[in-house]
Each structure stands twice: as C-alpha cells, then as structure tokens.
C-alpha cells in the first residue's frame, strides 16, 4: 500500500479539524434558543462554506453529510424525523452551494451562502409540510422565514469570506516561513 503524501495527510487533517468544528457548532446551535423549530442561524454552514472555498466541492459535500450524522449521533436524533429534515435540508443546501459556486460567474461566498440558506429553509418546510405534519397551512409561515434566512445567509457568508481571507493570509505566512 502506498504511503499517502504529506500534503494529502495535511489536507485530511485540516478537513477533520473543520469537521470537528462544524459538529461542535451544530450541537451548540441545537442547544441555543431559536425563533422557531425550523429556524437556526446556520453557523455550521459557515464551516461548509470555508471548506468549499479552500478545499473544494468534494470535501464540502462530505463535510456537510458527516456533520449531520455526527451531530445526530451525539444529540440522539439519528433516523428520527428531525434527522430526516436536517439531512434533506443540509444536502439540498450543500448542492445549491456547489452549483452557485461553480456556475454563477464572479460570485462570492455571500451569494453562495444566501442561496444555501434560502434553499435550506425551503427544504425544511417542504419535508415537514409534505411528509411529517402534512398540513399545507404550514407554508403560510414560509415567506417570513425565508426573509430571515436571507439575513442570516448574508451574514454567514460575510463571516465565511472573512475567515477564508484570514486563512489564506495565515497559509501565505506559513508557506513563506518554510522557505
């Protein structure tokens, strides 16, 4: 068996560190008081955005999926309706992140985060409305929640962009110090 390259190992270690951070934020957020059962700030999504911008699409999608599973294991909600809602919403949001990041020209993490937050919220309502509670009257709540998602998506995107810029500066300094 081939020994992995140090650069590859470093990449994997960084991804694991991001995964731990995202899982921690996921659990922290579930313990925080929120405006409603479906409304969360999406702090863990910041980490997905950072991974998307610094490590690529494959790592971002893997992180989104792994974070949901680890979070559910630690919270004891694995395979419950909450988990299904979270899984569908997170995977939809991560897919939209990838599509916007790849195909919208000159977009920044703000636009990516905005679209992801809105799709995350809409997907949650769709799963709950279509499969769990099955009351169409629920959709009446959707527009105000989507507006709140726009605000949190934009703020999260700006935070992610700031952190990516900081990481790039640190990485540059690290590489320079090695030379």
């Amino acid at each position, binding site marked *: 068996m081939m020994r992995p390259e140090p650069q590859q190992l470093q990449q994997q270690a960084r991804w694991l560190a991001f995964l731990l951070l995202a899982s921690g934020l996921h659990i922290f957020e579930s313990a925080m008081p929120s405006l409603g059962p479906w409304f969360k700030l999406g702090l863990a999504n910041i980490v997905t955005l950072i991974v998307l*911008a610094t490590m690529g699409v494959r790592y971002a999608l893997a992180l989104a999926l792994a974070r949901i599973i680890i979070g559910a294991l630690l919270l004891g909600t694995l395979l419950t309706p909450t988990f299904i809602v979270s899984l569908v919403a997170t995977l939809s949001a991560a897919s939209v992140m990838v599509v916007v990041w790849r195909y919208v020209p000159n977009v920044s993490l703000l636009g990516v985060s905005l679209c992801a937050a809105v799709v995350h919220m809409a997907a949650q309502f769709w799963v709950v409305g279509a499969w769990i509670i099955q009351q169409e*009257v629920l959709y009446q709540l959707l527009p105000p929640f989507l507006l709140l998602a726009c605000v949190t998506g934009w703020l999260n*995107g700006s935070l992610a*962009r700031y952190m990516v810029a900081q990481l790039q500066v640190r990485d540059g300094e690290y590489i320079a110090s090695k030379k």
Partner: protein
Amino acid sequence: MRVKAISSTGLLHGLHGRPSDYVLLLLVLLAIGMAAYQLRHDAGSTPMVHIYHAQTLLATYPLQSKQAIHFIAHGDVGTSEVWIERGKVRIIHSSCRTKACVLSGEHHRIGDMIACVPNRILVTIEGKQHALDAISQ
C-alpha cells in the same frame, strides 16, 4: 481544485457583496415576494372549515387536508364529533337527541353548514367564492 480570489480584508467590509451577489439577492427576494403573493392568493381561495360553539370559534381546519381530522366539539348537551376527510366534512356523532346533524351527511361546498341546534354547534365551510349554489339550496 478551484479556489476563487477572496478580496475582503475586514469583517464589516465583508458585508459588501459583488454585483453577482446583489443580483442573486434580488432574484431571491423576488422569488420570496412571488411565493408570498401566491400563498396569500391560495389561502384566500382555500375552503376552510370553521367549528363554532354559539359565537365562539373553536377550531379552523383546511377542507382539503391530506390527513383526516377528528375534532370533538363540546356543546351545551354534550359533544359533537366533526370528521374532515378528502375535502368533505360531516358530524359523525352527536350527543343531541334528534341526530339531524349526523343525518345531514357530508358537505363539501363553500357556504355549506352543519348545525347542531340542541348542542349549539355550527360547522361552516368558508372561502373566497361565496357559494351562490349553497344559497339556492
């Protein structure tokens, strides 16, 4: 791996997006506005079942609910059990003596009503299109 250039330096500066971000924001807000308009329009024309005891509104349910709804209304002489399923509403049991409300069967049109007079329970189907055909009954 594709890494886009990140140009922000400060946290507050990071709140300013690129033109593409603002275009996306505009599109999203437009979509939310259209969804809100559509939902409001749909809500207005969706028939709703209102269950009253005298002048007190006890409950409101959409007539076209996917799941069957069983509501027990407490009236003057006992209970009236309202059943909503597949766009139809009926009273399946009542504590009243005559049972006229139960015998009136299923109702599905806007403007239809089921009244249990002894129990002072009224079930109405309300919506945007006021039922001219119901008045003509």
